[in-house]
């Protein structure tokens, strides 16, 4: 058989299959629906990702870990040691899902994937931060803590306490420190040393809400750092 005859037979075979109805084209509506479903899936993934970032953000502000890096090397170690790794891992999964969706678009695949990854992470952090600053996630965490299945998950992050971070209110000033009442209602004596960092200055008044970073020994805390909480 010559090449032309061979070629003719391949085209003819396919055309015959089409004519006999064994091969049919999928409708335009099918592809539009598929595109819409994929886009909807990507939107859901993006919303879940923003939600997770918001939970991370709220948790870090609530337990004071966000301020720990201000207190030097000890603070950085406490920060990395106290991160909510489960939620960070979940967030990473959703970032990968979103990248897999975005990678189908020319704007994304024509450039190294690193660029899209960085942009996606930055946008997520910025938007997640903006949403969280509205107090939305703090309120959501309180409401969701009572939910039947996810409640346990949310309560864990609501009540999450970072090691060596003590949140409370100054009740009494004294030389070389102050006395505070922490979130749990306990009275702690906080003492300062040469290693104590004061990012917001070292003047404290009764009633000031503060985070104290330092190791607790009984009812005393030797402070590595003190941060005043803005209202």
């Amino acid at each position, binding site marked *: 058989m010559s*090449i032309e005859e*061979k*070629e003719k037979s*391949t*085209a*003819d*075979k*396919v*055309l015959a*299959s*089409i*004519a006999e109805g064994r*091969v*049919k*084209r*999928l*409708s*335009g509506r*099918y*592809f539009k629906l598929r595109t819409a479903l994929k886009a909807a899936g990507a939107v859901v993934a993006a919303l879940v990702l923003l939600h997770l970032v918001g939970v991370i953000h709220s948790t870090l502000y609530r337990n004071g870990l966000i301020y720990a890096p201000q207190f030097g090397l000890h603070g950085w170690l406490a920060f990395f040691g106290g991160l909510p790794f489960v939620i960070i891992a979940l967030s990473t999964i959703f970032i990968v899902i979103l990248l897999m969706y975005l*990678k*189908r678009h*020319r704007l994304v*695949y*024509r*450039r*190294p*994937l*690193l*660029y899209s*990854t960085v942009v996606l992470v930055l946008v997520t952090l910025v938007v997640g931060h903006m949403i969280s600053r509205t107090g939305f996630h703090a309120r959501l965490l309180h409401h969701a803590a009572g939910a039947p299945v996810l409640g346990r998950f949310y309560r864990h992050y609501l009540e999450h306490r970072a090691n060596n971070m003590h949140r409370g209110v100054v009740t009494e000033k004294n030389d070389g420190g102050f006395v505070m009442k922490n979130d749990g209602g306990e009275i702690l004596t906080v003492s300062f040393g040469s290693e104590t960092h004061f990012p917001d200055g070292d003047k404290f008044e009764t009633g000031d809400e503060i985070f104290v970073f330092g190791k607790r020994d009984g009812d005393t805390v030797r402070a590595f750092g003190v941060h005043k909480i803005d209202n």
Partner: protein
Amino acid sequence: MAEPTDEEIAVRVQRGDDQAFGDLMRRYERKITRFGRKFLSVDEDIEDMVQEIFVKAFTNIQSFDPRQRFSPWIYRIAHNHFVDALKEKGREPISFFDLDVFLPHIVARETPDGHVDREELKRMLDLSLNELGPKYREPLILHYFEDFGYKEISDILRIPVSTVGVRLQRGRTMMRRILEKAGQTK
């Protein structure tokens, strides 16, 4: 009267003119067959595969955007089909995650090859294709035998344009080493 473009024919197929699809098949069968033979390094089963590729193309013709070029679109279908064939046969699996695609590269811009260099490269490719992995073999085939540019290869393989350049560079280097070993270079 000028011949209709591939994109014009594809639009006719989308509007229901099934016979017009025959024109597209006749235009692309030799090219896709050649691409498949060089990429898979086989002769048998290739006609069946080409037929399956055209069936997929017809089935999904409504997903083709006529504002884009038809050629990369059908080659993308062919690429996916041939890669699946490689995976099924357990030959030279292609990795799921490739650092080449993730990281940026500094690569010389695409420049036209001189006529003599290109023909020599094609001759060298024919001698060394079997020894090259699919990751480097495919861009070389698409560029030197199918005459696609970097951006079109990027669209077919869904990899960054800079990665196309890097793989072509590395592929050419590997090819020269293979041929030097075999004593085939001038």
